């Protein structure tokens, strides 16, 4: 499954470690929320980076105390019609100030890239190669946005008001 990060298809440096398997001594790992919460402090003391896969049915509040020490949070779209992780993403980015990698996992298709990016995702485990290849093109599809989100894109309303302001200033 290709990983798109910072707009490009890249190698995934994080190793998915199953719940029963032994943790490697160093290197970047991606583990389940349940495993992480068993002993977060011990895991965070490891030499490598830590990423957590957070289920979409659990409030992100439990993750908040560790956010500044996590290198990645992976949120889950079990099917692309289940949109709970969009809310989790915005809460992590906008309310809790999370700045690490925010990864979309599960059924990820090109038709969600813009929504996901606007909600704060910056890494995507894409289901189809063709969709991953089309990432850059797909991200250029929209130039107008109505809602303010943490992605910083200027909304249509703000653009209009700026325009109005500059027009009246010029008169």
């Amino acid at each position, binding site marked *: 499954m290709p990983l798109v990060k910072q707009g490009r298809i890249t190698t995934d440096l994080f190793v998915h470690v199953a719940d029963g398997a032994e943790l490697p001594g160093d290197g970047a790992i991606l583990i389940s929320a349940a495993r992480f919460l068993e002993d977060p402090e011990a895991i965070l003391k490891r030499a490598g980076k830590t990423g957590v896969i957070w289920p979409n049915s659990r409030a992100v509040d439990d993750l908040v105390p560790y956010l500044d020490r996590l290198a990645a949070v992976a949120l889950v779209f079990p099917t692309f019609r289940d949109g*709970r992780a*969009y809310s989790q993403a915005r809460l992590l980015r906008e309310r809790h100030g999370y700045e690490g990698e925010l990864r979309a996992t599960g059924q990820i298709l090109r038709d969600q890239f813009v929504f996901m990016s606007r909600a704060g995702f910056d890494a995507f485990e894409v289901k189809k190669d063709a969709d991953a290849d089309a990432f850059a093109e797909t991200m250029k599809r929209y130039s*107008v946005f109505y809602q303010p989100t943490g992605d910083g894109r200027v909304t249509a*309303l703000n653009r209009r008001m700026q325009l109005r302001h500059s027009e009246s200033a010029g008169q």
Partner: protein
Amino acid sequence: MYAYDELDRTLINERVSEFRDQVKRRLSGELTEDEFKILRLQNGVYLQLHAYMFRVAIPYGTLSSMQLRRLAHVARRYDRGYGHFTTRQNIQYNWIKLAELPDALAELAEVGIHAMQTSGNNMRNVTSDQWAGVAPGEVEDPRIWSEILRQHTTLHPEFSFLPRKFKIAITASEHDRAAIKIHDIGLRLHKNADGETGFEVLVGGGLGRTPFIAKTIKPFVHGRDILSYVEAILRVYNQYGRRDNIYKARIKILVHELGIEKFAREVEEEWKLMGDVGLTLDHSAIEEVRSRFSYPAYEKLPHMPDELKQAAADPLFERWRKNSVAPHKVQGYSIVTLSLKPVGGPPGDATADQMDAVADLADKYSFGEIRVGHEQNLALPHVAKRDLPQLWRALDRLGLATPNVNLVTDIIACPGLDYCSLANARSIPIAQELTRRFANHDTADMIGRLHINISGCINACGHHHVGHIGILGVEKNGEEFYQITIGGRADENAQMGVLIGPAVPYAEVADVIEDIVEAYLALRDRPEELFVDTVKRLGVEPFKERVYATR
């Protein structure tokens, strides 16, 4: 009218281009039907019984004559020459080809019309009072707020994959023509004690298999805070709404299971935590949207022009005027409702030729503006009273002057088994038969205001629960049966109708409705007592007795 600017037009065009790509990928097999389904639904495309159905948004029910002509063109060029106006300020086409849809959307986009989110599990077309901006006594034009919400809910990056569909309706009048109490969120614009404009927010209304009347979650939310408050409701719903069972996924179930108090606390907490995230609408933001609504340059006209006095001698004109013409906030003007309920016709259908002709009449008599209401009728919102006689003659030639607005033959009906893959029974032929039974205008006048609503299945697209008389099609052993409810209403006193007894077979429905109406005529305590008020006073028993005593 609201004028789309370059930004709105760009967004609609970008959406068309995205959908063109999605259709291409579907036709090439790159997208599976399961993947494509969600994407086409978000663009208003259903796969129905015989063909694709295409649902186009008419935000808050306002159309320009140019837009209506384009809807006619799409009916003619891409469909079979007609369209169907629905209960949610949409128009549906029933026979569209998938491969041609992107072209149809592109033609609509040229006049600022789109089909975004007219279906699917996202925020649907925001609906409002079809008399917005012209109804006497309204707090202010609710379409300004409808447009603010339309923009905010379009391609929302957090709420485009909700547990289920989500509908918002707004009213600013004492008399609710937008049926806000049967919506997921109902907004009632009013002023608080300090004269500030804001909303009573209702939540959790809806029909379908588990009908609920919406409950007030907050009596006053200031206008500047309405986006953040709605967003707080949606965020709670998106996270906690049920996704395990499609029948329990609507917000009404969440509100019911938690109780309105607990749900309100959740929303309040989310709203407080939200803080300032750029959603507060300051005065200039509201004015920016308001400034793009234009209003007609009304003339100073007499209250009672000579043309109207003369025409009053014609009883046919007078019958139509009394039934179809409503007061306007500006002296000398009227709001005229165009009935899409001719005797023997499918409720809400209009031919392409009728649409073109209405667009011409709107240009001539209504400053180029047309409205669409949830009762599946059209309206011309700014007609000078002196023009009423001429307008009436023109409408009559088009078959759009049936004087039955709000009367027993002004039936709301879903398309039913004739078109819909969900339906268990036919709706349109029942409506047609009832319009023939009650075709006599004197009888209909004598009966007075009486709303009949017909749904061909439990999903309740015909809003049968809130019909004064509701007719619900069900299937029993392969045959069409109909459950009858009475006493429902969709206005400011909205309530669900009560079942009067066992379902009756197709062939008996019209007889049963006649029995109910006859019972009402015998039971009302004076001619002015509406059917629904008689039911409220006496309950269903006397009606039940009348219907089932001889069956």
